[in-house]
Every structure is written in C-alpha cells, then in structure tokens.
C-alpha cells in the first residue's frame, strides 16, 4: 500500500477491527454452539457453521460468538446447535441445515423470537449430569 492519508488510515482501522473482533470471545454476549462430533459433521454441521458465519458477517452482528463442541448425544437430530442469547432461554435446535441456520440468525438473534419448529428440548438436568 502506498502512503496513507488520515482518512485512509481510519478506514483501514475500521475494516480491520471487524476482522479482528471475530477472534475475540470476551466482549460477546450471545453464543452459538455447534455440535461438531462425527455425527454432526456427517449430518452437515460444517455447512450450518458456514451459514452462521456468513450470516453474522453480512448482517454485521458483532456481539455473537460461534464455538464448536463435541457430540451432545442427540445424534438422531444432528446437526444440533445451542443458542444462548441474554434475556432469552437457552435453546437447542435440531436438524439445523443451512436454511435453518440463516433463519436462526434472522429470527432468534435479531428478531428475539424462537424458531419454534426446530426446537429440541434440552434434556432434564438430572439426565445430562
């Protein structure tokens, strides 16, 4: 890059800030946890993951972090995704394909409404213990 002016420096900073903020897990309030066990991956968890990333990026949602986890034991309804938004119940969604992933971002994260036809009840606490 050639020598910059003040404005160019500021623009560069803004664009790089967005890139860097994806790394940072600290100041994010909401969380999407994708089950990426063998079962999840086989059922298409990677595609769902890509869809989530893409959706968060294009909508410039900065306060949500995506992490992966192992198999939650709900192999029959993979890919499973747990969504935790402050002020809303923690929800597990089953059979999350690319389309559902995009709906979750739109309806759950932005619209603050549950995507009801894909909710998989969280097993009672005494079972997962």
């Amino acid at each position, binding site marked *: 890059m050639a*020598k910059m002016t003040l404005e160019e420096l500021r623009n560069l900073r803004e664009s790089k800030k967005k890139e*860097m903020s*994806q*790394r940072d897990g*600290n100041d994010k309030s909401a969380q999407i946890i994708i089950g*990426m066990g063998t079962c999840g991956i086989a059922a298409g968890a990677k595609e769902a993951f890509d869809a989530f990333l893409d959706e968060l990026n294009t909508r410039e949602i900065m306060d949500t*972090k995506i992490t992966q986890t*192992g198999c939650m034991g709900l192999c029959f309804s993979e890919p499973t995704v747990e969504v935790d938004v402050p002020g809303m119940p923690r929800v597990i969604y089953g059979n999350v394909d690319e389309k559902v992933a995009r709906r979750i971002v739109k309806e759950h994260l932005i619209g603050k409404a549950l995507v009801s036809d894909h909710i998989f009840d969280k097993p009672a606490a005494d079972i997962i213990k």
Partner: protein
Amino acid sequence: MAYKNYILVCAGTACESSKGIALYKELEKELKAQGAETEAQLVKTGCFGFCEQGPIVKILPDETFYVKVGPQHAKQIVAEHIIKGRQVEELLYDKEQKGKSANEIGFYQKQKRIVLRNCGVINPEFIDEYIARDGYAALEKVMFEMTGDEVIEELCNAGLRGRGGAGFPTSLKWKFTKNIKADQKYIVCNADEGDPGAYMDRSTCEGDPHSVLEAMTIAGKTVGASQGYIYIRAEYPLAIERLNNAIDQSREYGLLGDNILGSDFSFDIELRLGAGAFVCGEETALIASIEGKRGMPIPRPPFPAVKGLWGKPTVINNVETWANIPMIILKGSSWFNRIGTESSKGTKVFALTGKINNSGLIEVPMGTTLREIIYDIGGGIANGKKFKAAQTGGPSGGVITEEFLDIPIDYESLQGIGSMMGSGGMIVMDEDDCMIDITKFYLEFTVDESCGKCAPCRIGGRTNYNILDKISKGQGTLEDLDQLKVLAQAMRKASLCGLGQTAPNPIMSTLNYFEDEYLAHINDKKCPAGKCKDLLSYTIIEDQCIGCTACARVCPVNCISGKVKEVHLIDQDQCIKCGQCFDKCNFDAILKG
C-alpha cells in the same frame, strides 16, 4: 474471509527456544493436510507471559489455552479441536479448566495488561493487526487534535514515570526538550535491557513493536524532533527483526518518513545495535555508544533532555515507558492515574523468575503486593520449598524478605526497604539460596560490567567482591563486614554513574536483612543454605548406611568407595560437593553440613 477458529501460537523468544517455530510449521502443514486451511487462521503472536508452560497455543474465539505444546501435538489439535470442536484435554493448562477460558486461569486473574495489551493477541509482523487494535489512533490525535503542551500536560496528569528503574517523571523530560530551541532534536528508545533475568523490554519489542514506534513518533511531534533511534542489544535478534520489519511497514504506510499522514511533520526511526555492555543502559553511556564512541558515562548535568545525542536536546525513555504512552493519549490521563498508588501510577511489567512455579512475564497494577505476585500469579515456590526472599532491581537492587510480602509495590515503598523497582526483573529465592552467594553473583556481574572510568566503581567493586569471596570460603573476619560497609558508602557517594552508585545495594540489603547468614559464614564457618561449597561437606552416617551402593553409582567423580552391604565412605579430597549422593540416598544416611 471469515474463519471459524484462530490458532494463536506464541513466537516470543522463550517459546521459540522450546520449538515454537517447529510447532507453527507443523500446524500449518496439518491444516493443509487435513483440509482445514479455511477453517482456522494460524497467527504468530508475541509473548503470552506464561513462559514456564511454553510453547503456548491459544485458540479463539473459545479461549482455549494449551500449554507445553510440541510439534507432535499439531495433528491432534487440528483433528480434534479445529475439525471436531473437542478440546484436547491433555494439553489444557489446568485439566479442571475444561470449558473455561484463558482469562479464568489464576496466572492472568490479578494481572492488568496495558503495556502487554497486544502481546499474545496480535501478530507483531502485521501492522494491520496493530492498527485494528486502535494502533496509531493516538498518533492521529496528537497530530491533528492536540498541541504539544497538551500532550505534555496529559502525560503529567497521568503521572507516568520512567519504567527503566529510576522513576523520573516522563512529562518533565519531554518538557525540558520541548522548551529548548535547537535546529535538531532527537528521540531515543533505550532497549538495552541488561539486568540478569529480565526480559520485559525484549518481549514488548517482539510482541508489539509498533507501540514503541508510535510512541516515539508522538514524542517527535510533541518536542519537535525529526529523528529517532532505538538502541537495542545485538543479543536480541528476534526483537531486532520484528522492529525492523515494523519500521519498514510503517514507512510504507506513511506513518514514518516524510510528511506523515499527509501533514508537514516528518519523522523517522533507525535501530542502533549495542554490543551488550551493561553500562550502555545508562543514558549518557548509551548516547556515547550511538555516537560511535566507547560506551562510557559522563557526569550529569547537563541532562540528555538539554544536551544529549550529538550535543542536541534528546528525549530518552525506556521501552516500557514508550509502550504506555499511546494508551494514555487514547484513554486519557484520568483513566491511567486511577490505576496504581498515590505516587506511582499505572502498571509494571515484571519478569518473574527463579524458584517459582509459574515463571514468566507479568503485568500488575502498581500497589500489588509481593504476596499476590508470588502466590496468586506465580503459583508459589517451586518444589514446595520455603520462600526466603525476592530480588528486584537486578544488580542495582536488593532483596525483599518475608516480612515485607504485604507491602504494596511502588517506586517509593521498594526504595524504603532498601531495594528498588529497577527495570522489572524479579528473582524469587528459596531456603536453598545463600545470600552471600547471590550477592557475590551480582558483584561479579557489576565488576565485570564496570567500564573502569572512575576509581570508586572499578576498585571498590573489585575489593568488595574479593571480600565476599573470602567470606564464602570461610576465611572472612568481622572486620571484613565493616570494610564492606565503608567501601559501599564510598562507592555510593563517589561513583560517576548509576552503575557504581548502586552496585553496593545488594551488599547493603543482604547485610541488613541476613546479617546472621554473614555471621554464620564468618564465625561458625558454615553456610546455612548449603550453597557455599568450601563450607560444605557430605559424610556418610555409619549407622544408617546399608551399603546399597546407590550413592557410589551416582557419584560423577567416583569418590565413594565401599562394598555391597558394607558401610560406604566419601573421599573428602576428591568430593566436588555436587550433592547427587545426598539426593539419591533413600536411607537418610548422608549428612550435609
């Protein structure tokens, strides 16, 4: 391009020496081999500070903290964590911390990272990542929104004091230089870090080189200088490489060089490599060295702020001081001066080493107690031994004993108990360390590093060293102790520069707190810690020895004789007092004393 994961690999010198680079290459290879190049971005970063457990790998955004990671683990990390999202449990620092993030580890909890804000976060080889973390925003502010006087006032209100050790207010130095009319002024960064065991400045230059460049440019704009020099020792190849790389990138972006950011302000920075002489950390000697002369100090005043490099007004600050400045400008003095104690604001970086569980690089607010540093952050004394003392200030400092564990650390409090802040080396000692031995070590260092220009330092240091040597061999007398004190006073008063003036500090400090240990060496001819070899002997207790031959087999000089199932004997003339037999014996049959 968005990635799902970010793998941060420490590429500081400490981790590099334990195969950090091989690990990086292996991870790169594995990501490719397992088709996960688009899943995770591999980032080389600066020191995480947790060197004891290196090489360190941090995975974001889930903040997993892996320790002691070797190249052989790369395959597993990629296959398990990156592809399947499962933590590799055996590599976690605290096996209990499964699911916990790095910030929840005890080592980091009491720390506050201002100077090290970007170390272990950004890739120091890419200016863009520094810029993304508000890099060069402080320079913008100084160039387009503030006057020079406002910048100095901000530093003054912040209460920033020199982190090189003496604690002189930074704003005053700048003010002196700014107020002098001169055709040329200079900005110098003192990166000649010489204290044994200290590596704060090296890590800052390696992990966040742009913070130093930005701050120096700010100073250039403020006082009206157009040229800066970073004086760094040639023994720091990685830091030099990263600084040079950073300077190139800044020039390319127009953040260094002519007409910075399109303005009429021009400033450039060059490196000057030192040969590793301790005295060149003293500012007048450093300046002489940059000028191409032999690195010897000259009396002050005049101070460099008035008459420095090539006789021109020169602002000279230490690496850590520089790294603080962009944050103070950006966040304001009132943010900064809320951190710390009444007289010492902000944080201090320490290189925590010695007999401690978590040796590494730490940054704590001023006013943190030694107890918090050693027990909460450092994880206590290694091998369950007892704390004896901590040494701060390097060869110019002194020891802090158990009774002072709870005083809040700042410039004044450390001076009050006969030590000093110094540049930030902190060496922890346990019951096996002999104070005479330690003092001798520091004296040997200052004698070695004395430039020889003035007699008090050259002759006084050597004479004191000889006395200490005599005491450590059991040949000392009580008169020697008086002589030590007299010479120490003379050196303090009459030496030309800080090196000689402070060289007796380890003696005075240990004499003050551990006089009984000196007396034990002189009167009883004993070394209580069992460190001074001339006062030490190992003997076999006849009643306890069962003749297992374990000691004889481990002895490196074969001076233990005896048949199987018979009492063994150590030949005192041959014994080198290595203590291996003592450690090996399972029957407590060897007496140390």
